[in-house]
């Protein structure tokens, strides 16, 4: 649904997007993860036909973004970072305005508005001016406006900024629901846990460049990040275990740290099974064991060299 090839965009001396390439399949939720100023919003702006690129190629739903902007606009929905809604109008009127701009009218538009209000649990508030809504309600309406014309691809630019955990959870559920119905989503965020929960694949973007791309496992492989198995055994066994574990398949390193044996390995579960066998053969048992899998925070730190919220 989306194909981007060597996209570049500069503002003066600043290279906002610097040779970005990726593709998003139909029905996929694709996350663009990066800190503020990394180039996420600029990338979305280019794909949404709002900004021209300096060079590169971009296709959305098979249409060239630069040569067929009108066709692209009809197939995409955009949910900007800001609450892009008319606060003086009601929820229903907001949906009505944008529906009409996309050529909807009559019963079709009315039904679509009712459907979206229901989906976002705003039906009861449909005829209230938006300025009286809570932050979460406004965010939900903001997303619904992007969907009013039933787009094939939805660009969501940090849609959960500034709302509480409960409202955020509702929005993520909403996006999952829409995705289940076949909607392709390009989702930018700097919340790691959101990207981890929601996205099928993630591209980490920093300083305008894609640092890594793939699903969680692929990212781990790309970066070489490993599971850590940490266990406590009798002191007399520690050195023998370290020596033995070092020769097991998939183990990169084993040593003793702060009184515990620590094994760096590709597959933590396999090592735990092998470990159990070894302890049985020694007539010993585990006192304490933990398997630490690398999360996105760890990955992100490794990729960019800094924490996301810095």
């Amino acid at each position: 649904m989306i194909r981007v090839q060597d996209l570049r965009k500069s503002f003066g001396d600043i290279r906002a997007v610097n040779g970005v390439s990726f593709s998003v399949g139909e029905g996929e939720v694709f996350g663009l993860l990066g800190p503020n100023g990394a180039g996420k919003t600029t990338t979305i702006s280019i794909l949404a036909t709002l900004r021209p690129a300096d060079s590169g190629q971009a296709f959305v739903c098979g249409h060239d973004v630069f040569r067929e902007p009108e066709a692209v606009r009809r197939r995409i929905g955009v949910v900007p970072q800001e609450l892009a809604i008319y606060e003086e109008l009601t929820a229903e009127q907001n949906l009505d305005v944008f529906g009409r701009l996309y050529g909807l009218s009559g019963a079709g538009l009315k039904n679509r508005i009712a459907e979206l209000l229901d989906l976002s649990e705003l039906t009861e508030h449909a005829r209230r001016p938006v300025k009286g809504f809570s932050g979460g309600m406004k965010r939900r309406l903001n997303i619904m406006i992007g969907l009013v014309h039933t787009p094939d691809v939805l660009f969501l630019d940090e849609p959960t900024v500034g709302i509480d955990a409960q409202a955020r959870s509702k929005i993520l559920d909403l996006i999952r629901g829409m995705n289940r119905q076949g909607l392709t989503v390009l989702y930018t965020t700097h919340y790691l846990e959101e990207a981890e929960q929601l996205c099928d694949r993630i591209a980490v973007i920093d300083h305008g460049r894609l640092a890594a791309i793939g699903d969680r496992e692929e990212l781990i492989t790309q970066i070489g990040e490993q599971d850590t198995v940490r266990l406590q055994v009798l002191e007399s066994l520690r050195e023998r275990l370290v020596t033995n574990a070092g020769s097991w398949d998939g183990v990169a390193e084993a040593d003793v740290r702060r009184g515990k044996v620590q094994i760096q390995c590709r597959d933590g579960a396999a090592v735990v099974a092998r470990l159990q066998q070894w302890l049985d053969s020694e007539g010993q048992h585990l006192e304490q064991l933990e398997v630490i899998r690398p999360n996105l925070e760890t990955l992100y730190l490794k990729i960019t060299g800094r924490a996301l919220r810095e």
Partner: protein
Amino acid sequence: MLRILVTKDLRRWWSDRNAVIVTLVLPLLLSAVLGVSFGGFGGGGPSLEAIPLAVVGNVPAPFRDLIDNALTESGLFKPTWTDSVTADRLVSSGEVRAALLVPDNLTAKILGGDDVVFGLWKDPVSVLQADIVEQILSRLLLYLRGGEAAYYGAWPEDWFPADDEPSAIADLFEGDSMLEVWRRISDGSPEAVSAWDQMSVLMDHQVALSDAYSDPVVNLLVTDRSGAEVKADQAPQASRNMFDYVLPGMGVFFMMFAAMNSAADIFRERLGGTLLRLFVAPLGPYDFLLGKWMFGMINGLLQLSVLFLAGKVLFRMNLGPEPWLLPLVALAVSAMLASLYLPLAMLAGNEKRMGAIGTGLTLFMGMVGGNFIQPEAMPPFLLSIGRFTPNYWANTAMTDVIARNHGLETVATPLLILVLFSLAFLGIAVILFRGRGGKEGLL
């Protein structure tokens, strides 16, 4: 698309209490303040300073005093008797607003029942005061019209009996009932016959007096400086309601601020993110600008409608000679004002900067364009600058219709200029929009 964009802005306007107050309530207040200050409820006029007036003519003392007293005691004129050359110079220099030319042999003409024509030179620059001079003089001259002349000509003062002389007519009507009076007339006594004859003559004079009033012989002929007559159709009846003269300038000035606020909505849409959302929708490249322009125009028309309606109902504002002309002028003025600030919105960068520059620009244009002071009272150099401002032409078009009661023939020029200004500002806004890189630049 334009209809959707305009409807959207109208809905937003209607839902925003502050915007409705600015558009509808403030014009009402403005017209009320202006009306009470200058028009008075029901269209009464304010007290005016005595208007300097030159009077030219070789008039015998009694009539000269009569004219002088009539002009002075009216409280409206400060007459200066002078010769025609001096009068012309005074009118030309603006020292007097008009010169009244009293005809030669005035007394003989009046007593002989000949037509009497007073001439009037008006200062064409000071249209307002010169028109007022004409209106008031026309009324004052009614006193001099045939009625008074015929009355004094036919009823010399010595005709009336002195207070202590016996009056035959009074004797004839003495008594308690009409029957008694009738019997006395029927007697045929010489006293009764004499009294009856005398009364018949009195009746004849009353009829002559009435005829003289209804068929005036004293007229006012308005001329230009060359002496050529300015006919009534060339000089339409101007309004005598000061409200009509003040409303256009103040109304346009007020609307300029409202138009600036309307154009600044582009920044509010940008900040709120809705501009981005509109630009992602399948709109034409300039639909957004045109939508803002059309909304501004409708907003302006609404404001003018409130102003005119309140002016008409409360202060008997003049709506011009033709019912369709004022709406046409309102449309042209609104179209011009709606486009006036769009180029600034393309240049300013943010709402705060636009507010600062726009306010300065509006005050300057208001000053030189005749919104604060009537153009006739402005120094010539300021007026020459003012003619390049669009609000000058908006003021002129509205004043022509409302205050001067002119028709399309006169108003066509300012109307055309307003349309040209609208197109020019809109064109500049489009060029600047493109120059900034279109949508990308505005975002």
